[in-house]
């Protein structure tokens, strides 16, 4: 019995994330609740508050969200080795599946096989709709008003227009970050100025 217990933490990290990676469809967001249940409730590796902290950082960083969480959890438990184990577990199943698909479902096959090409002609417009849906739901949930709605509209149109230098998504990510910082700094300054003025008035009375 003891040899079962002595499974190393690295192997456990790998196999936990392997199971999560193999059974979640729909990417990062779908994975979060599964990862939380596994590492917080089942394995008791980290406390819930710690997990929420790791999640916040994973969302803040660029890259694939599911990988960021796996790396953050692994890193939290066992440093770099732990993060490699967790990330390999997450990647392994989808890598194997997609590679198999890539070998057999080649672009030529999709083009030349009449059955496959008919299926994909039906699927392609559906994919576009599945991308439009989160635009609408997230614009609603963020409560974008008329004052901020122009930002995603302008970003989308400029990228779509494929202008030589301007249509680069990286450019808008950088501008968005800097502009957000400058905007919030001005807001906070105004708030503190207003507070100082009010205090001075109250003192004057």
């Amino acid at each position: 019995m003891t040899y079962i217990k002595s499974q190393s933490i690295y192997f456990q990290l790998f196999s936990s994330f392997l199971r999560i990676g193999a059974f979640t469809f729909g990417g990062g967001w779908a994975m979060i609740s599964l990862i939380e249940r596994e590492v917080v409730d089942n394995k008791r590796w980290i406390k819930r508050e710690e997990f929420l902290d790791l999640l916040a950082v994973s969302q803040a960083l660029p890259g694939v969200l599911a990988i960021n969480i796996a790396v953050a959890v692994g890193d939290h438990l066992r440093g770099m080795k732990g993060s490699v184990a967790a990330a390999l577990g997450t990647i392994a199943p989808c890598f194997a599946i997609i590679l198999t698909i890539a070998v057999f479902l080649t672009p030529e096959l999709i083009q030349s096989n009449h059955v496959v090409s008919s299926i994909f002609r039906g699927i392609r417009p559906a994919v576009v709709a599945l991308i439009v849906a989160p635009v609408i739901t997230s614009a609603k949930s963020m409560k974008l008003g008329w004052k901020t709605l122009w930002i995603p509209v302008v970003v989308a149109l400029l990228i779509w227009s494929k202008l030589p230098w301007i249509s680069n998504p990286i450019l808008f990510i950088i501008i968005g970050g800097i502009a957000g910082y400058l905007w919030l700094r001005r807001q906070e300054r105004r708030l503190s100025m207003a507070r100082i003025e009010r205090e001075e008035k109250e003192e004057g009375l």
Partner: protein
Amino acid sequence: MIYLRLIWSYLKIGLFGFGGGYAMLSLIEREIVGPGWITEKMFTDIVAISQMTPGPIGINSATYIGYAAPMAHGFDHVLWGVLGSLLCTFVVVLPSFILVAYTSHFISRHKESVAIRGIFKGLRPVVIGLIASAALLLMNSENYGTSTSEVVISAVISVAVLAATLMTKIHPIILIILSGIAGLIIYY
């Protein structure tokens, strides 16, 4: 050298892919479809395949494109494809390791600071724009067809799937399968 170009592209995708899979799509489109590694159609097909298989779009696209791009450019042995797959997948996750190891403590310590709150406040509407741009980029004749009848059929499928996603809880995989069946019935 196609491998170096792919590595460079996926490094950029890993470093600047904010806001999840769909928000990364316009970046992947620019880096991968733009230079002609794969066609517009294939790009949409990869997104569809990603939806139907487990795993994040960022990883799935790296694995598929890493395989297909070298194969389409003369490196047509399976092993060349597998090498491309491994390289692209490795490179797209590499920034995560470095950033989590070196910046996560900094971010969690300063997450209430004006700088970090401001940056993410500014990024949020941009991310919505990025997703919308991916949708716009994919609304083209390669995906919707060139004849009037095919465009109309495609538009009907799009509207139906969009309505089903927004108003019902039917899983996206089911919607893709249904659209595939519709395509088979209509076009075969």
